């Protein structure tokens, strides 16, 4: 056990890489989710189809397979990615597809009466979305987004297979060096858990903010 504790700088480095992957991947996923999720609510059938294709394609694809494509297959036809870029793209594209469905569902769940009020006040279609519909939809998106971010963080463990030094990768190194299989994996189990809890509290913080904005929670007195 003490061998594992002695290797803590390595574990910390690995944890930091995992956090970086999670942050970059989540930002990419969020952007993709908004773009393709909103496409899914568009009036034009063509735009909706683009959203659909993205979701169906990347939702049905294993992150690991995507990553192998970016890392091993695409370089053969001239597209080269660093391991980190390949990992972030695969995680972001995959989770973004789930996120797009969340965005689409949340936007559709905002009462139609709100949309009608925006028409009556003569907002342009972009303003309707930006000023009224989306802010209300965000409240519905946050809990599922929280799940997805944690999902992405956990899913990032597969990046060790393309030589990225994330938490799982470091654990395997430590395990190899010390032979402490049990304690090594206990250690990373706990670290993954702590990261997930930290992400969860961030999401809860955001939920509270949005609830206050929508008047769903009594203002602090």
């Amino acid at each position, binding site marked *: 056990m003490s061998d594992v504790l002695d290797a803590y700088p390595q574990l910390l480095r690995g944890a930091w890489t995992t956090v970086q992957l999670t942050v970059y991947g989540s930002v990419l996923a969020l952007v993709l989710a908004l773009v393709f999720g909103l496409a899914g609510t568009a009036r034009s059938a063509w735009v909706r189809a683009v959203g659909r294709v993205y979701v169906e394609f990347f939702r049905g694809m294993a992150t690991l397979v995507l990553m192998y494509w970016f890392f091993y297959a695409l370089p053969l036809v001239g597209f080269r990615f660093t391991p980190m870029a390949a990992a972030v793209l695969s995680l972001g594209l995959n989770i973004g597809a789930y996120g797009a469905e969340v965005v689409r569902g949340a936007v559709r769940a905002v009462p139609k*009466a*709100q949309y*009608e*009020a925006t*028409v*009556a*006040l*003569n907002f*342009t279609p972009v303003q309707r979305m930006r000023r009224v519909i989306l802010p209300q939809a965000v409240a519905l998106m946050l809990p599922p987004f929280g799940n997805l971010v944690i999902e992405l963080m956990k899913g990032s463990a597969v990046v060790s297979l393309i030589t990225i030094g994330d938490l799982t990768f470091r654990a395997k190194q430590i395990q190899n060096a010390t032979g402490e299989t049990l304690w090594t994996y206990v250690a990373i189990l706990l670290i993954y858990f702590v990261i997930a809890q930290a992400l969860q509290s961030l999401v809860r913080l955001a939920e509270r903010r949005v609830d206050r904005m*929508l008047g769903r929670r009594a203002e602090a007195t």
Partner: protein
Amino acid sequence: MPPTEKKALPAGQAPGLKFEKVVKRFGANAVLRELDFAVAPGERVTLIGPSGSGKTTILRLLMTLERPDGGLIWIGDDTLWHRERGGKRVPANQKHLHEMRKQVGMVFQQFNLFPNMSVLRNLTEAPVRVLGLSRDEAVERATSLLDLVGLADKADAHPTRLSGGQQQRVAIARALAMQPKVLLLDEVTSALDPELVVGVQDLLRDIARESDLTLLCVTHEMRFARDISDRVLMFDQGQIVEQGPPDQIFNEPTEQRTRDFLQAVLAT
């Protein structure tokens, strides 16, 4: 109404409205069948009649929330759902609708305030974003309108913290903040607790009397209809059964269907 509050109201010549053989279908169900009627500039007209008779559809067509299946709707000298191109009448595009909607405001049965904004922001957002007012101008306009509806102290409140009656007052102020020339009232007191109804109705009556708005109102409240309108239209199955000044419609209706309807409404 004190003169300072009166200046918060939209002023200027209001346009008339005209429906010309307007058809509206929902699936196989024709709600309006070649409906013809006109409203004079500044006239206040109330639509009464049984549920499903097409009254609310008329307001929703005027607010561009529904698209007609046939006929022409005029606001002033312009057609709402059609525009001129090369001497021909073609379906309206977004730009035309945006232009036409500038004249029209609507108050909904369920208020439809934006829960993601304070009361003040509900009143300033559209004037700033759509009309291009400066934040200060919009706040000034909103404040005098909140004064008018008796809610000056609620500017920073959250809409969900208000009673139904207060929410509807805010919604009325929000519609007026866009300075419409035509105001559509869609059963604006139906969702209110009985003790709040009269206050909102009195407010609307004062606004109607003090402004030059062309007013089109759908209601089941006959006292309100009598109070607010120059003319009452009795609807049934998408057709005008009978029309006239409120006194005539409510005291000496000539049509049996009107009599039956009034009896049923007044009995409740």
